[in-house]
């Protein structure tokens, strides 16, 4: 067990070094100010993070985390109910079908006009996107529960609420966390886009501001921060999945 941990750690570090080496190689070959090497970028990141960059990092983290929590709180109950209650699903499914493919990002101007250019419009947009991305997998997971499992628990005297508590919720939980992990990438992309438009705070703003000043090492410090944010969320959700679904990781 411990040995496997070390092997994993070794390959993680090796991959990071490989990426940095590739970056260095590309920077050396191109030799343009717009593509500084990793050394100067990480140095600038270290300097900036103890300065103004930290504030932007916190603002962006706050926006994306709140959006993920909100989407979760809305999509999980909706998905479970739609997956289990045929009548609800029949009336809502066409709506979902129509709205799902609409690129929600085009509503950013509308949201900014209605909700202002602060946190609320950004959080609403990200929530809107992530909600649909996790709703559909949760609904399908709830629908796919083996009826024999439901019947055997019903035969123990379970009412509707017991079924949700003991069967539906644990059955969709892995799907919830997996779909959220996948959606977190999209969430950060939407965050970046919304922060580059008439914004004064956040990593998107910081990055674009550095670009407009041709401060390329700072721009890359912003890129590093954004990647770090994505990485942290990804790892956190992965960890959460292992903690919340121990039965999926037992040794057989």
């Amino acid at each position, binding site marked *: 067990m411990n040995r496997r941990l070390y092997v994993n750690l070794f390959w993680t570090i090796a991959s990071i070094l490989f990426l940095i080496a590739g970056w260095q190689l590309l920077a050396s070959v191109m030799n343009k100010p717009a593509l500084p090497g990793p050394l100067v970028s990480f140095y600038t990141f270290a300097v900036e993070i103890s300065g103004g960059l930290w504030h932007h990092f916190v603002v962006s983290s706050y926006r994306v985390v709140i959006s993920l929590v909100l989407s979760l709180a809305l999509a999980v109950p909706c998905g479970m109910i739609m997956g289990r209650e045929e009548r609800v699903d029949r009336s809502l499914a066409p709506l979902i079908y129509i709205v799902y493919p609409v690129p929600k990002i085009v509503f950013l101007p509308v949201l900014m006009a209605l909700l202002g250019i602060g946190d609320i419009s950004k959080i609403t947009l990200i929530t809107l996107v992530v909600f649909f991305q996790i709703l559909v997998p949760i609904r399908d997971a709830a629908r796919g529960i*083996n009826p*024999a*499992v439901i*019947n*055997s*628990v*019903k*035969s*123990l*005297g*379970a*009412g509707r609420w*017991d079924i949700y508590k*003991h*069967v539906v919720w*644990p*059955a969709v*939980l892995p799907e919830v966390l997996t779909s959220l992990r996948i959606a977190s990438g999209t969430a950060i992309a939407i965050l970046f886009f919304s922060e580059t438009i008439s914004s004064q705070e956040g990593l998107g703003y910081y990055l674009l501001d550095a670009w407009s000043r041709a401060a390329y090492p700072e721009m890359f410090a912003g890129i590093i921060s954004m990647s770090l944010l994505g990485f942290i969320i990804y790892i956190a959700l992965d960890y959460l999945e292992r903690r919340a*679904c*121990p*039965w999926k990781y*037992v*040794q*057989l």
Partner: protein
Amino acid sequence: MIQAEQKNMVEVNGLSVVYRQGKQEVPALRDVSFAISRGSTCALIGPSGCGKSTLLYVLSGLLESYSGRVLVDGAPVAPLRRETALILQDYGLLPWKKVYDNVGLGLEIRGVTGKERSTRIERVLTEVGLWEMRDRYPSQLSGGQRQRIGIARAMALDPDLLLMDEPFSSLDALTRENLQRQLLDIWKRKRMTVVLVTHSIEEAVFLGQKIIVLSGHPGRVLSIVENPRMGEAGYHKTSAFHALTTELREKLVP
């Protein structure tokens, strides 16, 4: 208002069940009648598609759209009757709950908590010899162990009617025989009424005091055979046992 104790635990009169498949109506059971006396065992046997599982679902109260009269303990069958336990062939255990919590699930749902719950769980897990496995997940158990946990979960509810839908059919021959014996032992101690659906003739003769033979498409009672020597030590080695299996085989495969 104490009712006289019913002699029959289960009484089925003119039971018919029709399944709807799209616009077609598929009859599953037609005019089925029989009775099972309290504290006895009964095996239901028949070809696949004879509606024997459907019959069990009706008795458990899970299937409510049927015609005819079905009495359990003298009252019309009701969903969520507390003293009925159902064991399915598979899928009965929840993969996300440890053995201990799976066995305690029925008690938890029925609001039995605290000391009483933990004593009962320990008792039934010890009875089936799997107390040491209480912290494992179902995926970490063998098929036979899983089915024993299923039996333990049912017994934790102290049922007076135990319904089993081909409980041992996915197990290998040795494990199956072991579990059949274990079930027989439990029944001899508790004397609850057992209704067992099976497609194995030997199992029906080994475990059923009464054997109801159903014909297929739609299910109808072909014959009801009494098997009074069931449970006798060494019965399965006697010629009477083999004569009965042969008799049943001829009824099923004319």
